[in-house]
């Protein structure tokens, strides 16, 4: 197998405590985050439409889990549901339990007490995540004063410690800097410091490096990796980038059309691509060093058609209209997860014939 899968595997072995719980067989221990049959209905211009169609996921303490998929697959929506940040008018059913506490239907003030406290969040765009009118010191101190009731001076001292922790150069001088005075990578370090401030149980990172240069990307990923290892917080990482997932998470959920189409240990999923959508996603990616034929690269494999609009999502398998393997039964009912390996499952009724 190539170096990439080997790296994912080595990484998984390295972080031995990352005992993720299989989606289809819940463990005896209560997971940190336990999402069951999560459904979210949004009001669209064309009437109500289901954006999440029964998501199940479990994340153990200190474990790492990745949600991967393309725009509109529901990966960010899942994270938003966990954070209680769904758009107004969204209807939620199912269950989201964090530390055994039910988050679905939780009043806003109780949710506010968790967000930024037990749940730390890092967003894609550090410039819009930070308030341009406040110093970064004040922004890191805010959750500490709010959730921990720290005094102004104690919060400032802690903010400095956090900035040093995220390796911001000249942290002491930067405490009074404004976001515009920092580079993109430095700003992302600040948002990570804010997310870490209250020592969360769960860090949600939604495309944390998409807006950054490649070399900076790597530094930020390494930082998140180190912090997750050192603090023992769990990581829920959202990305469209397969290579980011390979580096960061022990377990992977591939999402399409508001459902999890494939789930399994990251290395195992990469090694045995199972669901037709997962295969299509991998095949469509240009690869560094792919061989040339007569000086040119062969055409990239593409997935026929496009992601249907929410209101048009097929009743059965959401991928049915784009799948080369489709049969009538695919359209009849949403396919159940089929085990294809150790803790590796795919929602495809023809998985036996494909794999």
């Amino acid at each position, binding site marked *: 197998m*190539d*170096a*990439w*899968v080997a*790296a994912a595997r080595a990484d998984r072995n390295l972080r031995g405590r990352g005992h993720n719980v299989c989606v289809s067989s819940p463990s005896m221990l209560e997971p940190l985050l336990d999402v069951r049959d999560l459904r979210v209905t949004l009001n669209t211009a064309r009437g109500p439409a289901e954006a999440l169609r029964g998501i199940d996921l479990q994340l153990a303490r200190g474990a790492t889990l990745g949600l991967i998929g*393309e*725009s509109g697959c529901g990966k960010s929506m899942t994270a938003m549901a966990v954070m209680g940040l769904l758009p107004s008018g969204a209807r939620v059913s199912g269950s989201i339990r964090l530390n055994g506490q039910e988050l679905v239907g939780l009043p806003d003030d109780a949710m506010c007490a968790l967000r930024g406290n037990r749940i730390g969040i890092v967003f894609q765009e550090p410039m819009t995540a930070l308030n341009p009118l406040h110093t970064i010191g004040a922004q890191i101190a805010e959750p500490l004063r709010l959730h921990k009731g720290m005094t102004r001076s104690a919060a400032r001292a802690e903010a400095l410690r956090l900035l040093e922790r995220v390796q911001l150069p000249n942290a002491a001088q930067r405490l009074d800097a404004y976001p515009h005075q920092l580079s*993109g990578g430095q700003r992302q370090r600040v948002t990570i410091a804010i997310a870490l401030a209250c020592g969360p149980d769960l860090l949600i990172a939604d495309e944390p490096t998409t807006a950054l*240069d*490649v*070399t*900076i*990307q*790597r530094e930020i990923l390494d930082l998140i990796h180190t912090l997750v290892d050192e603090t023992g917080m769990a990581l829920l990482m959202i990305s*469209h980038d*397969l*290579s*980011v997932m*390979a*580096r960061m998470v022990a377990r992977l959920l591939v999402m399409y059309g508001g459902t999890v189409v494939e789930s399994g240990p990251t290395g195992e999923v*990469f090694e045995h*691509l199972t669901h*037709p959508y997962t*295969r*299509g*996603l*991998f*095949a*469509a*990616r*240009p*690869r*560094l*060093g*792919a061989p*040339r034929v007569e*000086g*040119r*690269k062969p*055409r*990239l*494999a*593409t*997935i*026929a*058609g*496009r*992601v249907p609009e929410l209101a048009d999502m097929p009743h059965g398998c959401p991928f049915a209209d*784009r*799948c*080369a*393997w489709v049969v009538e039964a695919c359209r009849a009912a949403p396919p159940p997860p089929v085990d294809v390996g150790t803790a590796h499952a795919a929602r495809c009724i023809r998985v036996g014939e*494909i794999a």
Partner: protein
Amino acid sequence: MTADADIPLLEVRDVVKRYHLPRESLFAPAPVVEALRGVSFTVRSGRSLGIVGESGSGKSTLARLVMALEAPTEGSVHLLGRDLNALSPAELIAARRDFQMVFQDPYGSLDPRQRVARIVTEPLIGVPEGEARQRVAEALDAVGLRASDADKYPHEFSGGQRQRIAIARALITRPKLIVADEPVSALDVSVQAQVLNLLADLQEHLGVTYLFISHDLAVVDHVCDEVAVMQAGRIVEYGPTEQVLHRPAHAYTRALLAAVPDAPSARVDPAHPIRTNPLPQE
């Protein structure tokens, strides 16, 4: 492309670009930033040159100079042997049909209040209406959209389709050179594959030359015959793609490559290939 096969399509010679920053003190000269510090390269007709580098390395400044949107402080940009900055305004407008641009963001680069037909015909100057309509249909066809799409608005299209509209707008003048500034960075993986295939088809069928700016080394490796690696306004490494990306000589190129994790190999069984989406030919 026959008679001038020996003249490079695009030649950039010793280009320097300095910008003046706002004055910091009344008693000191305004600080100057040197965005390009002596850049030279040539692109032959029908080939693709990739420009890679990080934010601030001068990639987009270079694109603006090649598009003659700004003049270099020193040096020159020649398209088909003509110095773009020596042309009169009228000559420059006429010359612009030979070089067009595709931008990164297909949401920001199309006017939401104009129909596709108007967006796509904008670069056509002095073409009779009947012919313009014909050319729109041709351009839309070339990028795999329907002629009936001309009457729609940008919001009716997905991101990948919008990028096709932006490419149709660039194609309508039948340009020799297309400057593409991060044309697939805002697109999802499967849509990105469709647009990259389209760019390859257009090159094969129409002989278009690309100056392809990207931070994504795998994409550049896929599209480009040659690569120039930029750092702080200079080209630090320049040569055939295979050599630069697979046997890098410069430390900065190696650092860029080291930051890219190995791509996963696509394990597609040849007996059961993923159903592919062939683009309309012709």
